[in-house]
């Protein structure tokens, strides 16, 4: 009978506390699973960092032959890019990258913040539900489409705008126009601003929505207006998150290639006005990718340009992370 009972328990009692043995096994299995999962997450976290490191190393290795001929300082500060004559000055490209990005951010950030605040704080749910997918859609448009749009709409607009602005505000050097065409930093900046807007809005919106309702309710309860509530109760808590959103937008703007390339004019001269043409680093790489095989050191120079671009983006990210830590007094962004 006992053996019969045991058999019965054996089949039915797998979860029965009476049987220590199988349940202990289960515990071990759980621990192993837990450990494997932990390891998996660890690897998943470090893998992208390893990839970044691998990219930097690969670029460095390929740039090395160039560094043997030209000093890094000459590459970063040189004004002339004529690889066939052995001149590899990348300063006009670095300046072009920064100019276009700066103009884009000046144009994009204020309206994006206002739009995100509106969507998160003011808009009725129905408006929000209609507007959000549309903004997300903006992020999904391929960059070459933005480029064509820039060519058709923005370049002529800037061409129309530049003599007028230059005539009225020409006493400011950065608004003086000597370029009779619309291919300019401003055109690139406008296209870029539209491209990064959905990203900045999306991040800012999420950050604002994640601020707990308590502060808001308390502020409104003591008679503050909506704007006062936003200004004193919501924004101070979301400063770090909003900055992160802007940094994200800048990083995207620094690297955007095709759309900018099509409208920015691609002249390798250091610009001095928003109406000047510029030549950002990604455009340099994309335009000359085809010549890589033809001239000695050219591929080295182009990969050097990629390395410089990567360093510019990294430098910017690190600086902004440090600045953010200063502002918020926190280590986490």
């Amino acid at each position, binding site marked *: 009978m006992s053996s019969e009972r045991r058999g019965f328990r054996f089949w039915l009692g797998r979860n029965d506390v009476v049987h220590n043995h199988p349940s202990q096994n289960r515990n071990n299995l759980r621990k192993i699973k837990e450990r494997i999962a932990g390891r998996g997450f660890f690897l998943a976290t470090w893998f992208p960092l390893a990839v970044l490191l691998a990219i930097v190393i690969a670029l460095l290795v390929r740039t090395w032959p160039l560094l043997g001929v030209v000093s890094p300082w000459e590459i970063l500060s040189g004004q002339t*890019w*004529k*690889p*066939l004559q052995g001149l590899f000055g990348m300063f006009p490209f670095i300046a072009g990258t920064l100019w276009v990005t700066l103009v884009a951010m000046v144009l994009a950030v204020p309206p994006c913040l206002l739009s995100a605040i509106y969507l998160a704080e003011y808009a009725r749910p129905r408006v929000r539900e209609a507007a959000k997918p549309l903004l997300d859609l903006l992020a999904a448009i391929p960059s070459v489409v933005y480029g064509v749009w820039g*060519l058709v709409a923005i370049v*002529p607009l800037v061409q129309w705008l530049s003599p007028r602005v230059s005539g009225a505000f020409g006493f400011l050097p950065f608004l003086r126009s000597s370029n*009779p*065409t619309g*291919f300019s930093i401003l055109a690139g900046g406008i296209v870029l601003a539209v491209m990064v807007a959905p990203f900045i809005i999306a991040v800012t919106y999420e950050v604002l929505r994640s601020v707990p309702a308590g502060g808001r309710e308390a502020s409104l309860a003591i008679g503050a207006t909506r704007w006062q509530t936003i200004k004193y109760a919501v924004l101070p808590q979301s400063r770090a998150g909003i900055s992160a959103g802007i940094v994200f937008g800048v990083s995207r703007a620094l690297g955007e290639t095709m759309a900018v*390339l*099509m409208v920015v*004019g*691609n*002249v390798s001269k250091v610009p001095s006005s928003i109406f000047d*043409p510029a*030549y950002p680093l990604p*455009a340099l790489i*994309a*335009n*000359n*990718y*085809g*010549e*890589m*095989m*033809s*001239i*000695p050191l050219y591929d080295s120079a182009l990969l050097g340009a990629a390395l410089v671009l990567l360093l510019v983006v990294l430098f910017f990210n690190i600086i902004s992370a440090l600045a953010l830590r200063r502002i918020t007094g926190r280590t986490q962004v």
Partner: protein
Amino acid sequence: MNKRVWQATVAILILAVVLTGCGGKSADQQSGELSGTITISGAWALYPMMTRWAEEFKKLNPKVEFDVSAGGAGKGMTDALSDIVDIGMVSRDITPEEEGKGAFWVAVTKDAVLPVINAQNPVLQDLLSKGLTRQALIDIYITGQIKTWGEAVGRPEVTTPINVYTRSDAAGAPETWAKYLGKKQEDLLGLGVFGDPGLLDAVIKDPNGIGFNNLGYAFDNQTGNPVAGAVVLPIDVNEDGKADADEVLETKAETVQAVATGKYPSPPARAENLVTNGPPTGLIKAFIEWILNDGQKFVDEAGFVQLTKEQLDASMQKLK
């Protein structure tokens, strides 16, 4: 739910395997029938000709698929050498460095790069009656000494600036144009616009613009006239101070004639090359051989210039 996910995953995997199976190229030895996919990229100049060839070749060999894309001669070269495509279209000379990296090339046809101005140019009549000499073009494109249209035609009272456009992407047309002016693409002044169509568009939109285009883009394929809004700028080849009848290129046919007879200088006329990574074999070789023989019938109607028989024979010889 879980089951759905599994089913979807399996379906996608099966689809992926099936689609991968579609690739591959082979010349079926037993039936002699050609099959497979030929991928081609490169020069904007050769693109219209290549799509025509692909179309005709496909009529004869229905099992052959083509994937042709344009992206500039440099892209064609790099893609071919890094095995991204089977054939690269390169509309400039192949450098010794590229040959050193395994580039095998044959010339298949000929065309030209033409200077293009806007039809509303402020000194259009002067330009059409006098043309511009090579030296004037050098002063516009290389040294930047000529800055206004008035200076270009010797009428100092006209002070409209010349808006110089060039190509931003590394390509055969700017390289050939720069070669004509004694320099390299990196020495060309002007605003860089991406692609052949982009450059033409910029000039059409700008009455003070000057650019350069491949034969196939400067002229409308249907009518044989220059694309609306653009005019081909006559080059005063013999430098007699006027544009002679054979220097004014008003239609595609005239231009093809001028290139074929050598009246139009070379460069900017140039041979169009096909590049493979090492000598081609199988299907790719068969296709290139067809281009050099039967394919030549379509060259005229596509608006390109036939190579001489000696040049074609040399290309065939090289393939063997």
